[in-house]
């Protein structure tokens, strides 16, 4: 197997999870709690797009865009309904609330759409071969979409008034309010951004594999690991974290540790020493813990005090 292929596989994985993780980290930056219901927005978005794409026969891109907007609005609605009442509460209280919300949303999806495996009306993709790498058109689309969204996020954060206001609110909400920034409006924007990014990520996962009501929940732990790895609150960190996770999972399982330990046969003869595949999930956690020992606030996290 070619090394390029492994990098591409890692890139696909990173694109999907990166979108989710950026959304999570952006909301964390303002709301200061790890939202366990975040991944459910991905699931809801993917299923809304499914309904429009398959049931109503809309174009998948259009369906996706509408779904993303709807999920963004839904998240604001949820904020008005639930989280607005908990503004001053401890982050643990918020986490547990989002936990309950996540259970309700996940099973809501299940109640509405059922548990059957679903897929978008894009047919089975046939891969094309580029520089010895096999990749399907949809996967190229996934990588491009996520790169474009990341650029857009970057522009919003750095070049717009909204971005500036967000940074101010994140650093010191009271001061921001005093400077005339309408912090509640910022919070709404942040919910919208975070949830629609999650929905986009969910649709990407749906395009790449298939849809089930647990598609969000099943990526929750890697998404959290990515945001922590990169540094909570930092979208660029999330991008880096996603890449690291994708690469370690793919390269970690592929690398023959025996060859590395013996410097490719220089000392002794030891081959076929691989990390057991059962530990795939653990690889990302161990990387995460190692990184945190080195930098307690993640790779690009904000320094404390």
């Amino acid at each position, binding site marked *: 197997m070619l090394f390029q292929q492994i990098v591409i596989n890692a890139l696909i994985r990173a694109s999907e999870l990166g979108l989710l993780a950026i959304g999570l980290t952006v909301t*964390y930056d303002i709301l200061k*709690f*790890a939202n*366990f219901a975040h991944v459910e927005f991905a699931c809801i978005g993917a299923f809304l797009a499914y309904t429009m794409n398959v049931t109503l026969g809309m174009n998948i891109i259009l369906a996706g865009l509408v779904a993303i907007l709807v999920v963004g609005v839904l998240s604001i609605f949820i904020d008005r309904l*639930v989280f607005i*009442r*908990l503004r001053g*509460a401890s*982050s*643990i*209280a918020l*986490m*547990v*609330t989002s*936990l*309950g*919300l*996540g*259970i*309700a*949303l*996940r*099973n*809501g999806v*299940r*109640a509405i759409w*059922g*548990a059957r495996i679903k897929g978008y009306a894009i047919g089975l993709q046939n891969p094309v071969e580029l520089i010895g790498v096999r990749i399907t058109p949809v996967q190229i689309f996934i990588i491009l979409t996520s790169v474009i969204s990341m650029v857009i996020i970057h522009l919003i954060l750095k070049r717009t008034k909204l971005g500036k206001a967000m940074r101010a609110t994140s650093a010191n909400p009271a001061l921001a309010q005093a400077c005339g920034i309408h912090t509640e409006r910022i919070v709404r924007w942040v919910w919208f951004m975070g949830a629609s990014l999650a929905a986009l990520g969910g649709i990407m996962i749906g395009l790449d594999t298939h849809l089930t009501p647990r598609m969000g929940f099943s990526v929750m*732990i890697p998404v*959290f*690991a990515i*945001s*922590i790895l990169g540094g*909570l609150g930092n979208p660029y960190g999330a991008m880096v974290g996603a890449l690291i996770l994708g690469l370690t999972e793919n390269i970690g399982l592929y690398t023959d540790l025996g060859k590395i330990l013996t410097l490719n046969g220089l000392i002794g003869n030891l081959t076929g020493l691989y990390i*057991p595949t*059962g*530990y795939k*999930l*653990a690889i990302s*956690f*161990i990387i*995460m*813990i190692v990184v*945190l*020992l080195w930098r*307690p*606030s*993640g790779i690009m996290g904000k320094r*404390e005090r």
Partner: protein
Amino acid sequence: MGVLYFFVYLMIMANVYGILSLSLNFQAGVGGMSNFGHVAFFCIGAYTSTLLVMLCHVHFLVGILGAFIASGLFAFLISIPTRRLKADYWAITTLGAGEIVRLFFLNESWISTGHYSGGPFGIRGIPRPWESIIPGNIYPFFYLFLTLLFLGLTYFILQRLINGPFGRVLKAIREDDDLPLSLGKNIHEFRVKTMVIGGAFAGIAGGLLVHYTTYVDPFFFMPMETFIVWAMIMVGGIGNNRGALIGTLIIQLLYYSTRFLKDYLPIEAQLLASLRMISIGILIVVVMLFLQEGLVKEKKRLY
């Protein structure tokens, strides 16, 4: 008669989860450490007691003691390198540690008691304590008494700790790092101690669970279990033991009572199961919204 047995079973499980939520409450509520990998201690306790009793043929009580020590030791191991992390980082790190423990017992199938055991096969035939002496129809009542005993012991010890000088320093650390620091208290050391004590008691819960089910495998310890224990202590009121116990009872009742309510609703089973989980989720949210400090508020004292 059946109803009575069901009630006894329900209470046994409530006691086991009660110990779990007391121990998590000690770490999270009193020590302010958002541990999202509590299931790891539960898991290690369960496996330690199982292996000690089945392989070393020690008595059940020694097994439980082993569970207590082993999970305390594990808590020590993970809290040493991570003790400097901030709350949210710590939360996800412990979540990861919990998954690693589960994966360890899933993949290391040599940790077993014979053929077709260990790893995903699970371990069967875990002996129930004093089963040969006590007749089968009284046994559940006996086990209820046993778990209640351990629950009481946990409650008593943790309550003593919380109300003593140790607990006062912990609460001070939870509220603000600087004050105890200025009094010359080593915060990190206190955090490690809290983790170890809480972890050790969670190990007891693990032992008690598997000696009743007589079977254990790694799927008993999915992250969801931790989340449920969190819901218990938050609903009851974080920071005080009575709240943790009431919360345990309420979440348990929520899970059980919805099973019975559904028998009277003429809805298809598929939809019903979703609705049941939705209502559990919504009820957690509602409780959090209207009772931000839980059912029983922590008693704040001035010194």
